[in-house]
């Protein structure tokens, strides 16, 4: 018996793992430290302040404030504007995010499979991203003008009805969505173009040989799955950007008419900076963040499971 024990291989411990892994973890922490410190200072800390504000009646311009517990939150529940704003934001996002993603993907594929005018097309679709909205808002104002606007002029030529794009509460959200799509397609396009370069050519060759005759087959077989990480990124960012829509609303419609284009960030801005009720706006911000964090995290987790990395 004793012999058997003595003969047993002497090593069963596993120092290899912990030591090497500790080393790796340390390197990882060092590499991410600057980012995390800045993230803390410039994002988390201010957010903490916002959370704190949400429990006060702080108003801009007043020196002091009172803690009011959850009053701001209870008020929020009955706030018609906030609910309207949530709904509008959801509708806007539901239109802009998917269309801008698929349009960008389609355009990216078309541009890449075309060998003339690539630079031109890339630039043409990207231009809206590079443009200053303050100026472009004016342009859109004009394009969408119900009487002197070129869009309606064209529609009139075709004998079609001429909507009151930004003026009517029935159409304003869709008009803003059109501008939103116009703005974000180029953005997503650039990301997809970058993503496409990482796909090994060999896989397309294999797909050809395997009989993927149509471009669509090759897309299904190679491009789409290999673009997974990019698509996940684009989806996440598109949703976030759509939810954060603000500037077009601010410059073009001020949330109107009759709250028809009231969106979350605009409402928060309005409450905080126009009505100056920082405490209440903070509570809105907190709710806004909670909803989004939950949503995004679910989206990310679900989609990430289906994505193939390297």
């Amino acid at each position, binding site marked *: 018996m004793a012999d058997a024990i003595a003969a047993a291989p002497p090593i069963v411990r596993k120092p290899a793992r912990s030591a090497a892994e500790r080393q790796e973890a340390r390197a990882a922490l060092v590499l991410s430290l600057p980012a995390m410190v800045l*993230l803390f200072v*410039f994002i988390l800390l201010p957010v903490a302040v916002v959370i704190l504000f949400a429990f006060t009646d702080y108003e801009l311009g007043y020196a002091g404030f009172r803690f009011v517990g959850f009053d701001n939150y209870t008020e929020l529940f009955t706030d018609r504007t906030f609910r309207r704003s949530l709904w509008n934001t959801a509708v806007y996002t539901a239109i802009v995010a998917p269309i801008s993603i698929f349009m960008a993907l389609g355009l990216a594929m078309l541009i890449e499979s075309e060998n003339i005018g690539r630079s031109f097309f*890339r630039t043409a679709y990207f231009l*809206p991203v590079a443009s200053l909205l303050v100026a472009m808002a004016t342009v859109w104002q*004009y394009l969408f003008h119900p009487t002197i606007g070129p869009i309606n002029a064209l529609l009139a030529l075709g004998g079609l009805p001429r909507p009151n794009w930004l003026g009517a509460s029935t159409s304003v959200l869709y008009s803003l969505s059109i501008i939103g799509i116009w703005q974000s397609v180029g953005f997503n396009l*650039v990301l997809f173009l970058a993503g496409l370069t990482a796909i090994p050519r060999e896989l397309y060759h294999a797909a050809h040989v395997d009989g993927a005759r149509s471009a669509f087959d090759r897309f299904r077989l190679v491009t789409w799955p290999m673009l997974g990480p990019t698509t996940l990124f684009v989806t996440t960012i598109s949703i976030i950007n759509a939810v954060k829509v603000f500037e077009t609303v601010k410059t073009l419609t001020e949330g109107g008419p009759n709250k028809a284009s009231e969106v979350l960030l605009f409402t928060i801005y309005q409450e905080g900076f126009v009505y100056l009720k920082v405490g209440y706006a903070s509570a809105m911000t907190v709710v806004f963040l909670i909803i989004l964090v939950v949503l995004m995290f679910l989206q990310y987790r679900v989609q990430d499971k289906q994505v193939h990395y390297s």
Partner: protein
Amino acid sequence: MNASAFTLARAVRLSILIFGAAIFLAPYVFMISTAGKAQSDIFSSSLSLIPQHWSYIQNFAKALTRVSMTRLLFNGVAVCALIFGFQVMIAIPCAYAMAKLKFRAAKLMMVLVMLGLLVPIHATALPLYVAFDRMAVLNSYFALVAPFTISVFGIFLFLQFFRAIPDDLIHAARLDGMSELGIIGRVIVPNAWPAITAFAIFSVVAHWNDLYWPLIVVSNQAYATPPLGLLYFRAAEAGDDYGALMAATLIITTPLVAAFLLAQKRFVEGITMTGLKG
């Protein structure tokens, strides 16, 4: 494989692209045409793209002389360069660690990054403004740059791209004696050029065009960025003179378009993972 042959599919493809481009460019046609119009020319009932009174010279002269364009462009370049430099220096190592190294905090960091993505600058502007005021750093490049040195967008973007780089490549680099920073500089970055270029484009465009934050922290014209300048210009000189406004917009947008034209070549010469078998 015969991409140059003119087929029906190609005709369809080209027409879609051209049609789409026409729509996307329509606002610019209007913009360029407006930049050449006198104020009384702009809003008229006739759909004329050709200015009636040719006012390009006046409008551009106005845009170039009434605000200090060189100063604005210099500030824009300086601010964007500083922001971009810091962002990549800080985001790339972090994204690399999250994508390719095993450590426990990675999950938590992912949550923080997602949270960071969601927080709009509008929400944090006030506390940051107050803090910057207390530190007496308003009206400085520091105030313009500091809050953007961390780009959660960048971290997330790089994270997604780095994850596609084969592990074997990193393993080979380790065996060749590279430190983790060496791997980032010599292996990750060269193989993620398209992503970095895309990020560069976004970062530069976003901060070149940012109006919200400069408006808050800058009240001294010496630190004004191009859009802020444009705003003063519009406010001060143009009012509702859209012609001059469009001229100014063209002036500050052109550098971006030029930069994009240069950068987008990076997408053509994309990296393909041909060094590996299997």
